[in-house]
């Protein structure tokens, strides 16, 4: 009798694997966990993109909460998401820009054509702050809560869907009033 029961082990193992794989189905396997979650923005000293020569540090960031949007002119998806960001800024959503591994003239030209939704833009031409944040591509959008802590990251373009389902609820949860 016990020998018969032992024959069910492969089936049980299969069932367990099935459950484990099914749990993975809705996750995005290419997306990295945000290592800096729960930490403040790493220390930086970067020029403002728009005000050449003006050095910015953490103290120069706006009063949280806000979104931090990582973008660059070489990034096609950034072009795609930009009009929506402009829309959000017109609704009063505070967005800080991180111009990542880019060239100032190109970036300024890009903004002149597509409009500027940013409260301030950090010019991270060498990607130093990007690396400290754990940026691995553009666009990425970080949510900084009322305490100045990184609480969430969205990898990829921000659209109405992402805003309504992820970013807006989380931003509201930090105390931001729409």
């Amino acid at each position, binding site marked *: 009798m016990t020998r018969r029961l032992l024959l069910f082990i492969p089936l049980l193992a299969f069932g367990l694997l099935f459950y484990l794989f099914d749990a993975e189905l809705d996750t995005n396997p290419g997306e*990295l*966990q945000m*290592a800096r979650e729960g930490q403040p923005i790493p220390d930086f000293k970067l020029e403002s993109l728009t005000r050449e020569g003006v050095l910015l540090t953490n103290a120069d960031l706006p009063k949280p909460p806000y979104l931090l949007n990582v973008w660059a002119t070489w990034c096609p998806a950034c072009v795609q998401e930009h009009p929506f960001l402009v829309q959000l800024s017109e609704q009063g959503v505070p967005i800080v820009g991180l111009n990542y591994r880019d060239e100032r003239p190109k970036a300024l030209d890009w903004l002149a054509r597509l409009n500027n939704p940013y409260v301030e833009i950090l010019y991270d031409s060498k990607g130093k702050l990007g690396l400290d944040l*754990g*940026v*691995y591509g553009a666009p990425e959008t970080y949510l900084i809560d009322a305490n100045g802590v990184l609480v969430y990251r969205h990898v990829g373009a921000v659209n109405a869907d992402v805003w309504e389902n992820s970013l807006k609820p989380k931003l509201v949860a930090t105390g931001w009033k729409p």
Partner: protein
Amino acid sequence: MRPEFVISRIGRRALIAVALLFSVLCTVVSANADVYDFSSEELRSRFETLTFELRCPKCQNQNIADSNSVIASDLRDEVQRLLEDGYSDEGIFNYMTDRYGEFVLYEPAVNERTAVLWFGPLAAALGGLLGLYFWLRSRSASPVERDGTAKGTLSDESRASRLARLKAEADSLEVTRDR
């Protein structure tokens, strides 16, 4: 696989071509370390090892030694800077996981969470081998021969008559085949 076997299948020239191709590919891989200036050969060699063991966060099937992406190149630069600044290997791994998480290490850390990953396949293989062993043992311990005669119970006489009977059966089968 022994060389003689391979040569007989694909030919000597093909085997030489494959060996040459392989060695060329290997030299491409170490070219990255040559692009950088290191203050010592020890640092260069540590650079080669470390860049093999760090995963490119964007092209995740490659290490940062092989990947052509911008982030891989930035991370290689960073590894070189950290080496020159005197970081230990562990310090460099911590620096990277602080920013990109555990996934950036090609070899995951060994702890409770990753125990299943590290030891699971071995445990499953051992379990399978054990199962196979017990199954084989139970088969040879079976008390009957194929024709129903109990094993080890025959005297020489009944062995002879059993042999005759089996031979007669075999002959009759052959006769049917010839038709």
